[in-house]
């Protein structure tokens, strides 16, 4: 039981409240304290990625050992999939906090911003680290309530309305999740994920379990913004301050939405063909409808928010394809390839979507507007922003040698090998339309021949913002190395093995 695991939750939780106390005494301390805390977490998560590998570690909180081989305590599990998402959360979190050192000067009450940010990171770390169903719910609520407050941070009309819409829909989803947890507890009398898998193998009650699976899919699907439940995302992600938009769109919808769906459907429930087809259909709909809604947008942050829906559709689509291949008894290599493409796209999307939102924030910081029709010719006066934005736009459209190309290529190859030709064609069409949408963004914002209509002195943004954007664009280039076999075996293969091997997860946790 390594003591590293609870530190991921304790450090940001204590740091949030320490920031509240010390921030009132010394004026500039809260920025540097929050940056230091998130830098520590980022280093710890990379260390965990290097040491975990193929052997997951289990932490029993309070030291309660199993009685008659039935787990009675709260378990925290760190395996290959967990540590991948932990790295995304902490590294993108550190870059966002560093960016907000100079961005947050436009707002008041900075104390609360850093405290809420650390609480949100603590909640997300808790969701990915827990091996217990109710613990997922508690940490999910912690992170999501902090996100409600951060969306409404600058209290103007747009932001309050967006936060209200987000809160009502998010609360309804949380109650669906709690209802699902109650119904599972009724039938299985246990809350540990591995133990529920053991109990579900014994008997079955088909209509009841389909009902519970649908309720949990609806609840977590709303947090992940798949298509029938996407109505809150464009308003919330476009009205938030830019580092918070980068965290919400780059990390939150993955850590509390897609991660939990993948974990529950692979490691807790038995895979059935109907649910796999349903998940793949939802992914395809998200992918197509998201990109068609994004073409006509002239507000840069709304454009990026709709593209988030579309790219998350790619991830759900490829994971669903993997599920269908496993349940129909097809070749396991195709399933592993599909899931690998999905997880690789998850990591890539965090990098380039975070970078795009930070760029949009830099444009808003200097010009004061978000409308594409009012900008122009920024590539001469803001060279760093325009270069990083160019790299990010090429990544999201899938142009080699950046990381988006490799992950989309793996997804399309997996679709062709599994004989889903319609899905492969749709993926290629959506990728072309994404390229068109981002070419429009680049042309109107940066490479327009006429100057922008705002008469302000346009200079480059301050140093912390440039630092974060440049590091993230370097990540976009480095992450394309994950497609090569050596690096892939160290990072992605442990995650895929723990998901697709039906006995490995429960045997390791219950056997310890």
């Amino acid at each position, binding site marked *: 039981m390594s003591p590293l695991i609870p530190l991921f939750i304790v450090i940001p939780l204590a740091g949030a409240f320490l920031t509240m106390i010390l921030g009132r005494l010394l004026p500039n301390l809260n920025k540097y304290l929050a940056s230091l805390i998130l830098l520590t977490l980022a280093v710890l998560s990379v260390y965990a990625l290097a040491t975990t590998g193929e052997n997951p570690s289990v932490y029993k909180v309070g030291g309660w050992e199993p009685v008659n081989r039935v787990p009675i305590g709260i378990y925290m599990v760190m395996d290959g999939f967990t540590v991948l998402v932990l790295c995304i959360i902490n590294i993108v979190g550190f870059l966002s906090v560093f960016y907000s050192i100079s961005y947050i000067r436009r707002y008041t009450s900075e104390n609360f911003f850093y405290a809420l940010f650390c609480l949100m990171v603590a909640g997300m770390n808790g969701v990915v680290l827990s091996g217990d169903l109710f613990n997922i719910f508690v940490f999910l609520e912690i992170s999501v309530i902090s996100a409600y*407050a951060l969306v409404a941070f600058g209290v103007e*009309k747009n932001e309050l309305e967006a936060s209200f819409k987000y809160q*009502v829909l998010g*609360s309804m989803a949380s109650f669906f999740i*709690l209802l699902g947890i*109650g119904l599972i*507890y009724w039938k299985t009398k246990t*809350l540990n994920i591995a133990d529920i898998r053991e109990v579900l193998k014994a008997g079955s009650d088909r209509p009841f379990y389909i009902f519970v699976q649908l309720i949990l899919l609806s609840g977590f699907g709303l947090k992940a913004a798949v298509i029938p439940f996407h109505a809150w995302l464009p*308003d919330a992600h476009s009205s938030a301050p830019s580092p918070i938009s980068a965290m919400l769109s780059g990390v939150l919808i993955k850590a509390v939405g897609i991660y939990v769906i993948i974990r529950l459907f692979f490691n807790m429930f038995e895979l059935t063909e109907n649910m796999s087809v349903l998940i793949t259909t939802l992914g395809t709909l998200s992918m197509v409808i998201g990109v068609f809604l994004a073409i006509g947008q002239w507000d840069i942050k*709304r454009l990026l928010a709709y593209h988030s829906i579309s790219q998350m559709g790619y991830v759900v689509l490829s994971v669903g394809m993997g599920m269908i291949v496993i349940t129909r008894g097809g070749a396991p290599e195709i399933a592993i390839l599909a899931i690998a493409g999905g997880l690789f796209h998850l990591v890539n999307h965090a990098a380039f979507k975070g970078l795009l939102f930070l760029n949009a924030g830099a444009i808003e910081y200097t010009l004061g507007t978000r409308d594409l029709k009012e900008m122009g010719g920024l590539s001469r006066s803001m060279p760093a922003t325009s270069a990083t934005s160019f790299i990010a736009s090429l990544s999201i459209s899938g142009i080699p040698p950046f990381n988006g190309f490799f992950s989309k290529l793996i997804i399309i190859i997996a679709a062709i090998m599994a004989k889903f030709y319609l899905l492969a064609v749709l993926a290629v069409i959506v990728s072309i339309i994404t390229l068109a949408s981002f070419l429009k963004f680049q042309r109107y914002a940066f490479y327009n021949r006429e100057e922008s209509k705002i008469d302000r002195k346009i200079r480059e943004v301050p140093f912390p913002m440039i630092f974060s954007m440049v590091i993230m664009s370097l990540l976009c280039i480095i992450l394309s190395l994950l497609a090569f076999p050596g690096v892939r075996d160290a990072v992605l293969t442990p995650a895929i093995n723990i998901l697709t091997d039906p006995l490995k997860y429960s045997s390791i946790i219950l056997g310890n």
Partner: protein
Amino acid sequence: MIVYLLCFLLFLVGLYGVITRRNLIKIAISLSIMEFSTFLLLALVGYTDGGVAPIVDPASPVQKYVDPLPQAMVLTAIVIGLATTAMLMAIIIRLYRKYGTFDIREIKTLKG
């Protein structure tokens, strides 16, 4: 069995309230009704026939107790519900200050 169906009916009553009411405060109260129905379902799940309340009496420590785990879950969930309701109320007060009305049909500046 019929008790669980009644809890689910209460959940649907709350859902109807969130969807059809126009006043912001009534939406918040309907959300609270939805969450209380979930707590009722959780607390009822732990019932065993002939059980007593799960407090250990030193005189007779071995008895048939009701399941205490759902009760702990409901306590935690009540605290979370309080935080959510407080957050919603703060946003509603600020919305009233900006727009001057509680009617949700007037609050429509974000479109597209």
